[in-house]
């Protein structure tokens, strides 16, 4: 049977990579991709843990709902990015900094 360890490492690395993308990449849409990666990292966790506690479907169900939420976030997020693009003519998050202090 399969071991849990590589899957745990996979989820940890996916999460860290997602975080790195969010902080490093200078494009709002790529930042969005990083967020998707972070969500998927928790999905991997949830499904693996569901195998550890097989009496219910809790983990898998949670994963399903996470996917739904991710879709909603993407939709709203892209809409917001598009509008900001209309005002600022850029999708680089760092250039959008009129509010500060």
């Amino acid at each position, binding site marked *: 049977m399969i071991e849990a360890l590589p899957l745990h490492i996979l989820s940890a690395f996916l999460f860290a990579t997602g*975080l790195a993308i969010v*902080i*490093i990449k200078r494009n709002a849409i790529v*930042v969005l991709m990083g967020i998707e990666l972070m969500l998927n990292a928790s999905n991997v966790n949830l499904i693996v843990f569901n195998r550890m506690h097989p009496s219910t479907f809790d983990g898998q169900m949670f994963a399903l709902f996470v996917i739904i939420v991710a879709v909603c976030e993407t939709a709203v997020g892209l809409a917001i990015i598009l509008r900001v693009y209309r005002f600022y003519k850029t999708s680089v*998050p*760092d250039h*959008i900094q009129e509010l500060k202090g």
Partner: protein
Amino acid sequence: MEDSFQHAHGFLQTVVLLTLFLPLISFALSIIISYRYAWIVSISAPLFLLASAVCATIALFSQWNAPDVLMKFNWFTLGKDVFSADLLISNLVLLMLFVVALISFLVHLYSVGYMAGDKNIKRYFAMLGFFTFSMQGIVLSDSLLVLFVFWELVGFSSYLLIGHYSESINAGRASKKAFILNRIGDIGFLVCLMLVWSNQHSFNIIEIVGGEPSEWKTYASLCLFFGVVGKSAQFPLFTWLPDAMEGPTPVSALMHAATMVAAGVYLVIKVFPFFTPVTLEVITIIGLVTALIGGFSALAQFDIKKILAYSTISQLGLMLIGAGASMPEAALLHLLTHAFFKACLFLGAGAVIHSLHQAQRQAHAHFDAQDIRCMGGLSKKLRWTFATFVVSGASLAGIPFFSGFLSKEALLTSVWMQQGYFSAIVFLGFAIVSVLTVLYTYRLVYFVFLGESRMVKELPVTEIPLIMRIPLTILAVGSFWFVVSWSPFDFSGWLFEYSKTRAPIELTIGSSVIILVTLFFSTKIYRSGVAHTSDVLRNGFYVDSFYNKVSLYALTPIYRATLFLDRKVIDGGIHFSVYAQVTFAHVVAWVDRQIVDGLVHLVAGVASGIGSLIRSFQGGKIQHYVYWAVFAIIIFLICVLK
């Protein structure tokens, strides 16, 4: 506990509540009336206060020396804990109630003349009424929590009244300073409330003052005293009081001399058994330091109101010395006499300023109407004011046959009866302050009313209107000895009979002699001082030349000793001591300006420094926000995981 107190009967309750709430009604009326009929306020407000004063008088005479009465009111209940808003009526409370009501009424009356024509008269009388209400609340309430609420309200109305002349930048700054310094003191009060609640589970003074001294009581009473330091303008939080003189003069008379600043001392007297010996020592030290600083500073001032302000600080310090020496009755006595003569002095100063302003407006002259260097010789033009000013000034200086002499006598006795080196030092300090008081009082009277007329010579100065003279007269009459006792040399009169203490005869004689001698010398100093510098008067640089002359003497003592072996030696000696005192006063003023104000600036600077450090993380870049937040989480985790 409660059984030892008589419960209030209907009549007393009505009278006391009327005393408390009539000023509030006056406040409400002043708010409601529209601007067009603002003149109604200047009639209604004094009338309401007169009614309040009458009620206080009735209460005083019907209940004087009767057993204490507790009027119980439940405020709210929180689970099992009952928060009450009880009112306690004792001799102390009745006396204070009467003094506050009377002086507030007199100030109202005086303000009708003084503030006539001011466009914000509605707000002025409203806040004056509100202040009186809050002050009476402090006087009456038996719950520390309720007392704290009124304490805050007093601070708030003072804030608004200091800033009454809203067009003046200084007034705004002064009101802010007063408010902030008071708030700093209030932290102490708040912490005391917490300590009291957690240890005694009650806020009622009659319940918390009993019992043995313990460690928490020391802390709690120290915190409480810190609140008093803020309100009563004690070292190191006293700097707001001189600045508060930016407010209208009647306000200064009411709040910054007679009542509000005395609220701190009153609180000390009220909860006196609560203080532990350690706290009492702290109170004495702080009182002594403040009294000395105030006395010396008063010597170096030229603004008529600032002299009185520093004098107030100094007198408040003396009251605290009395309380610290375990004789709160003496402190109370001085509080009462001080309320009368200081209010009279302030109103007199107000009268001078008022008539000078009037005269300036007629003659189109321009000079600072509060600067004593510009005055002089006013005694011929303002006869009535001069008479009342001299009477109350004599009382301040502690000259026999005046009330101030008796109350200072009581304070001196309280220190005298303490044992040990510490009290000897305190006694010495007290003596110095008494001497200083005479000096600056005489200086004030001399510069304003005696001597030759300087800037005011040509001005058509006229006496103040009758409505302002009445309060002056009443207060001046209240500055004589018979207010305290029938005998002019024994303070154990009708006010003080519950104490068996009497002043030792040597003390009475000694202090009278010292004060009279000082008075004699001060007439010498200032008369000769003016003579020396008569040529400089034209240039308006009196002080600088005076210093130059004196320092010349001080720096060449040998030269002087050989040349002036006759009475000029004495003269020079006096000059030298005056020089030393003035120098010291300047040092104190410098410390006040640089260290205490600097401390406030430092605190503000540190706060804004921390603020800008934190805000530097808020640079507007969202990705920075994310990584700072993530770093914060990581640092948290590392700290906890170790």
